[in-house]
């Protein structure tokens, strides 16, 4: 049982719902934030039935101008999760800068704005955690998804710096790098090779366990760490000729 308050930013994502269910089983108080109030209510009712106490705020997390007000509404909380994001189409990003800019804003800039405020709040309290869902795509720029990769790469770097600063204040920052997860976000992507695709429940339980152990950077499932080790070790003059 816990009287922890967990803030779920992007609560209607597939991964967020799976994680919130894990947290609900511990009887936590969950503060849910997402754009769509109808979906938010549906997620909230489910979590309440599963044992959580739920508060919800409908808000567009990509709208940086609204962040101050949102933080006021959420108020004091010890544990934060950043789930929200989009998976943009790379060719659309190349042809149309507005689409790329939007992807960078949603996935990185707006998250950095929130992390700044969260970081300041937790640093002042001297305790707490923030767990951020980044991606293995942020480990190396590849032709097939470098706009998304750049956003996630920047996010990982930002979290790394934040971790460095906040460790002095006893605040834990965890970067989560999932590989392929079978959720609505990836519905249009063929699930091949099948062995690399996992359900969100698997990633959720990895994340909750890792956070309780105070891990800094996790790859989930575990084997992605080694896949990325190999990918990152390929020299640039060779990698640039590949079509990954």
């Amino acid at each position, binding site marked *: 049982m816990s009287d922890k308050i967990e803030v779920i930013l992007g609560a209607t994502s*597939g991964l967020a719902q799976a994680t919130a269910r894990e947290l609900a089983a511990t009887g936590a108080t969950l503060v849910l934030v997402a754009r769509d109030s109808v979906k938010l209510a549906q997620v909230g009712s489910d979590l309440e039935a599963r044992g959580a106490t739920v508060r919800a705020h409908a808000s567009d997390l990509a709208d940086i101008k609204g962040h101050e007000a949102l933080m006021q509404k959420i108020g004091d909380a010890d544990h934060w999760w950043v789930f929200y994001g989009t998976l943009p189409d790379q060719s659309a990003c190349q042809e149309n800068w507005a689409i790329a800019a939007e992807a960078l804003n949603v996935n990185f800039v707006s998250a950095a704005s929130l992390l700044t405020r969260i970081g300041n709040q937790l640093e002042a309290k001297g305790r707490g955690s923030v767990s951020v869902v980044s991606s293995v795509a942020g480990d190396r720029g590849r032709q097939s998804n470098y706009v998304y990769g750049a956003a996630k790469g920047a996010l990982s770097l930002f979290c790394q710096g934040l971790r460095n600063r906040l460790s002095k204040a006893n605040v834990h920052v965890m970067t989560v790098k999932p590989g392929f997860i079978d959720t609505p976000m990836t519905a249009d992507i063929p*699930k091949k090779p099948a062995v690399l695709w996992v359900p969100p429940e698997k990633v959720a339980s990895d994340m909750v366990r890792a956070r309780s152990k105070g891990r800094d950077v996790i790859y989930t499932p575990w084997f992605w760490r080694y896949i990325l080790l190999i990918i990152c070790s390929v020299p640039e003059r060779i990698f640039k000729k590949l079509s990954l």
Partner: protein
Amino acid sequence: MSDYRSWGFTPPVTQRAEVPAWREAALAGPHAATGTRLAYGRGRSYGDSCLNSGGVLIDTRGLDRFIAFDRENGLLTAEPGVTLAQILSVIVPQGWFLPVSPGTSFATLGGAIANDVHGKNHHVDGTFGRFIKRFVLHRSTGEVFECTPEVHPELFAATIGGLGLTGMITEATIALLPIKGAGMDVSIETFHGLEAFSALTAKYRDTHRYTVAWLDCASGGRNFARGVYLAANHEEQGSLDVPPVKSKLTFPFALPSWTLNRHSVRAFNQVYFQRHQMLNGQIRPQHYQGFFYPLDAIDRWNRIYGSKGFHQYQFVVPPGAEAVMEAVLRRIVQSGMGSFLAVLKEFGDVPSPGLMSFPRPGLCLALDFANRGARTESLIHELDAMVMEANGAAYPAKDRLMSAAAFQQYFPALNAFSEQVDPGFASDFWRRVSE
């Protein structure tokens, strides 16, 4: 993922799948106009009632949310993809239980309604459909119906046991059973012969909510129709703990198909019977998980039948036709093709609200046959003929072989049901029995 199967490993079929994430958009997927649709839960039906070759399956795994839980009055509203196991994990700690439990807790709420499932308490409580207070049904025309026994009663009656053919359920409300503990008090008696079974049924009928018998379908001679009779009630009080849902054992691969044969089955039955002989006459406490869902502990147990899979056959014969049951059993024993344990149960006369409900008063037997191709099929057709002649019925949730003629005889409300079928929905089962 387009590899959607049924539990009996029927041959893989080609169908497209959609996985809606939100119940309002259940029928709004990309394949909307391209073929007939069918909702798919966890594929625990044995035959082809959950498959739609050439069409679209609407996978409900993303529609697994609870909507409301009235802890005072025991009313639960949930999306169709929630499994019975997930429901139990939420309701048992609050002192509630499922009013009817089928053999697996991995079936979904939607599937339980579509098959109007029954359990060991049929003689007292009837079927699952009796406890459905309301549901919301989406049809291919875009219309949405909130159905109760009084509102849209024809659609309500057609959907219960309607095998998903009237449209897609996006939420349902079920009335729960109050309990004081998660355990069961189970009485065990071994018996020989169907008359002994009838005597035990009469003995326990009025005092025990749950009764069932495991029957040896492989042995003849003096061991013919021996079995183990179980009668149980919820305990008067006890802990309301729920064990973790994940199974600890799994069958990692399909066994070679010769593993299950007449000799290995007989050997298993001998051990099983003798073990229960030692418990004869005792009353044992048992957690509900082991009493209601023994096979759920072994993930993918259907793999013991090998890659060719198996046929399940379940049928009921009306009261007074016990001789037919005996004849069917003798034929099964003679064939040597029956599997380990058959389940024998007396159905009561509590009527179901569903037009196409399978359970009806009489004696019901369910068993598996390893799939040995044509030999198994012709045996099942033979048994179907015997059941038809006795005015009995077979269970679509288990079936892969029922003929159109048999189906029409088994379900006299077929015409009324057909009027409620949504032309945008279909299944392999429906195509087969309505040709």
